[in-house]
């Protein structure tokens, strides 16, 4: 190998190009949902197999939650979502929790322990999750009556509750 300046410069340019292309392909595969965007999926199959629409045209705001039975924070989020459904349901909030368990009995065992008083949908293959660009478990998307994303949230911690509740309240207030 000779340290010929032109070949070195060429190699460096090629390396930079490869790095840029690599980063670009990473960014393209991410595809996370942003506020203001329309939902990538219209509906997800429910318990009986009938499609549950993510935006039903009646709710003033829809809180879509992706969860799985093995996910600890999801377990914490269920009682909170029950409370939100009870508190904001009369004002037009609709909660749809999309289960991502590979096996349905796992989800049923979870629901027997942690009952849900909101709508459930099942996406065992993760097709909807992939289109939503779910990055963490649980992930939630707050959608307005027009079907546009208002906010996206990843994870669930006790300190997130107040913030999420404020977002829901303001989404309902805007209507």
């Amino acid at each position: 190998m000779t340290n010929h300046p032109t070949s070195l410069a060429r190699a460096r340019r090629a390396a930079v190009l490869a790095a840029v292309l690599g980063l670009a392909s990473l960014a393209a595969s991410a595809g996370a949902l942003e506020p203001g965007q329309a939902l990538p999926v219209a509906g997800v199959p429910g318990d009986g197999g009938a499609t549950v629409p993510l935006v039903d045209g009646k709710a003033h705001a829809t809180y879509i939650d992706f969860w799985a039975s093995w996910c600890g924070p999801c377990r914490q989020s269920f009682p909170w979502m029950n409370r939100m459904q009870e508190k904001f349901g009369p004002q037009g909030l609709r909660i749809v929790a999309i289960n991502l368990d590979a096996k349905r009995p796992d989800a049923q065992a979870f629901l027997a322990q942690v009952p849900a008083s909101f709508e459930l949908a099942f996406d065992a293959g993760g097709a909807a999750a992939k289109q939503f660009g779910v990055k963490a478990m649980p992930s939630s998307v707050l959608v307005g009556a027009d079907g546009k994303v208002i906010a996206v949230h990843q994870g669930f911690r006790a300190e997130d509750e107040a913030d999420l509740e404020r977002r829901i309240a303001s989404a309902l207030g805007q209507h």
Partner: protein
Amino acid sequence: MKRITILVPAAACLALAGCAAWAPPQPWEKGALAKPEMTMGGDVLTQRFDQHIYSSKESARGGYGVGGGGCGCN
């Protein structure tokens, strides 16, 4: 020499391309990884016991998934 300058990067590219076929599990595919038996080390009691000894000896704690009350007492 010239052949090496071509062959070595070509081999490196091929080897790296092999990594592209390996896709990490998606966040919703980590059910098996979330099982208790997938944790490193022993069972919960053993881990608590080990962490208790470690935190008493080192005056440092946390980072192992063993919950602390935040009271600062061991």
